[in-house]
């Protein structure tokens, strides 16, 4: 592992250089919000002082709207054409939080399982992930309760903010190669100690909010329990929690009419929508609102662990932070867990 430091003011320069070989996505300010945006053709300044971006950078690999092909009327019928996919350079995500990196591991499994999703895989190919340690986790963060950590990530490089200097550890070959840039200096003992200190401070600030022991089993037993309607009562079934979730990956395929023809598009979908499971017959196996909340929990804490060996929640806290009705997945999970205990 190579360990280097880079001074804060050199970051813009580094990103500019990286921009020559990569399409760089980095956190920028947008009217008070922090969002990941491509730095290509953009003059925005990258921000490093943020807790986490409002929206996870999942859309770098899995955009909300993806055109599969276009079709148009011609004099002798209909002609279709694959959507233009210009991938000039590999993608690079800069300063992505560890939880969001963990979510990408789930994405990798989902999109390269039985079906190889070429749209995802093409964007993911040769991509570089530069993660940023969370020095000050938020009150809503609970990565450590779902097997994550604010200070480690399976990335190419992981950065730690030490104030004037940013500590950088190269974790893969491609990461180490980037650290060869002249903006990076060898890390001295002093910085290594500071980094250690920052890491233990961050880890120390995290609390365990629930016990994941046998979670898939416990959830599995709760399907028929009477409490679902009660605990999801105030949910209005919008798609905020699923669209902003770094692990949610459900999509829909529809046609859209455009002038002279149309497009077949792949768009984010949400299990919180009644349309999600509506059959052509009109029957809806998840017609009740509570059954959608139950599905969301089951998918994250039972089906995904059972099928792929990974949890569908990385503890980023976005869903509870942005829910307009204050639904808190930690609270719901704890109710399910404690109801299971009272049964025994």
């Amino acid at each position: 592992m190579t360990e280097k430091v880079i001074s804060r003011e050199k970051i813009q320069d580094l990103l500019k250089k990286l921009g020559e070989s990569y399409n760089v996505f980095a956190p920028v300010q947008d009217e008070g919000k922090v969002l990941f945006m491509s730095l290509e053709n953009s003059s925005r300044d990258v921000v490093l002082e943020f807790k986490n971006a409002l929206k996870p950078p999942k859309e770098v690999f899995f955009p909300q709207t993806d055109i599969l092909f276009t079709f148009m009327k011609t004099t002798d019928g209909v002609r279709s054409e694959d959507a233009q996919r210009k991938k000039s350079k590999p993608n690079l995500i800069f300063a992505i939080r560890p939880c969001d990196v963990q979510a990408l591991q789930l994405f990798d499994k989902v999109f390269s399982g039985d079906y190889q999703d070429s749209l995802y895989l093409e964007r993911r190919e040769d991509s570089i992930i530069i993660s940023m340690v969370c020095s000050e986790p938020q009150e809503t963060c609970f990565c450590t309760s779902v097997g994550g950590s604010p200070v480690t990530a399976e990335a190419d490089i992981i950065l730690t903010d030490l104030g004037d200097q940013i500590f950088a550890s190269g974790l893969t070959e491609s990461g180490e190669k980037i650290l060869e840039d002249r903006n990076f200096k060898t890390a001295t003992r002093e910085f290594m100690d500071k980094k250690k200190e920052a890491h233990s401070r961050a880890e120390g600030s995290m609390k365990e909010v629930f016990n994941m022991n046998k979670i898939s089993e416990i959830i599995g037993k709760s399907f028929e329990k009477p409490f679902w309607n009660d605990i999801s009562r105030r949910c209005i079934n919008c798609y905020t929690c699923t669209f902003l979730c770094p692990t949610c990956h459900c999509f829909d395929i529809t046609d859209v009419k455009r002038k002279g023809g149309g497009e077949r598009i792949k768009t984010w979908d949400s299990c919180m929508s009644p349309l999600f499971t509506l059959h052509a017959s009109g029957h809806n196996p998840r017609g009740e609102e509570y059954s959608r909340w139950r599905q969301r929990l089951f998918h994250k804490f039972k089906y995904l662990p059972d099928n792929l060996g990974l949890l569908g929640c990385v503890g980023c806290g976005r869903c509870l932070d942005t829910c307009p009705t204050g639904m808190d997945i930690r609270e719901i999970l704890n109710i399910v867990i404690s109801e299971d205990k009272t049964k025994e």
Partner: protein
Amino acid sequence: MINIQDELRAKAKELLKKKKVNVLIGYGSLNENDLPKPIFIREEKDVDMLVWNPFCINNLGKYLLKERGKIGIVAKGCDVRSIIGLIQEHKIKRENIVILGIRCPGIIDIRKLPDKGNATRLHMERKNNVVMVGGKKMQFEEVCYDKCLTCKYPSPIEADFRFGEEVKARKENEGDSVSKLESMNIEERLKYWDARFEKCIRCTACREICPFCYCERCILDETIPAWVSRSTDLSDTRLFHMIRFLHVAGRCVDCGECERACPMELPLRKIVKMIEKDIKEMFDFEPGTSLEDIPVLAQYNIEDREDFIR
């Protein structure tokens, strides 16, 4: 000072005990530290979960459509207007609901607090117009919701019981944001909105939270044909908002919930204000202000001075 929360709990207990309501929709927190959330109280023993504090922001009016029988509801001045609207539209019957109206001194917008108030929320105090946030003094106007700054009806127009001291209407000073937009030409306006609509993730929170977006079949969800595509192409997102706002024009009461619910922080109340102004100017109508009113776009008048409709 009268403690609104204690009074509310006492009244809620009484109503449930005497079976005057079978459910009470209010604000509640499990822990003292939590932000209040909408709760549904069905038994007397749960009444102690009921809270009132300057963070009770949700407009609970929409939940009236989710419940059956006699319903009790806690409502601020602005929320009451949406309840009046729902009664006017025959979605609910006045005699089936018991309104616990709050004379509202204004609600704090946690997005305006440092770090969303996470660290300081519990140590917040409000004395008249000064809010102490973690030892720092802030003017209430700096941290309250924009809608509260110009609230015309902080004291409920309609209620069965009223709580708190009379609050006077606040001054109208938000006109600026609308007039700024109005002074723009069409291209500038389109540019302004496109820059915002671009951020819209079409999560539908603005629709689902709106008390007036109650249609069981919404044109935005139709699939055969799909009038509005799921695509986040700007043309589709523009259409999404144009349709939604046209459908609430003349009904929208500026409860501000659409803007608050929006995770991408789109300034939706700017559209709300524009519509409100148009409705006032064109029809001299103010939605949700009187039980006797017929919703303006549901009225027909043979004497109408516009002749296109005859």
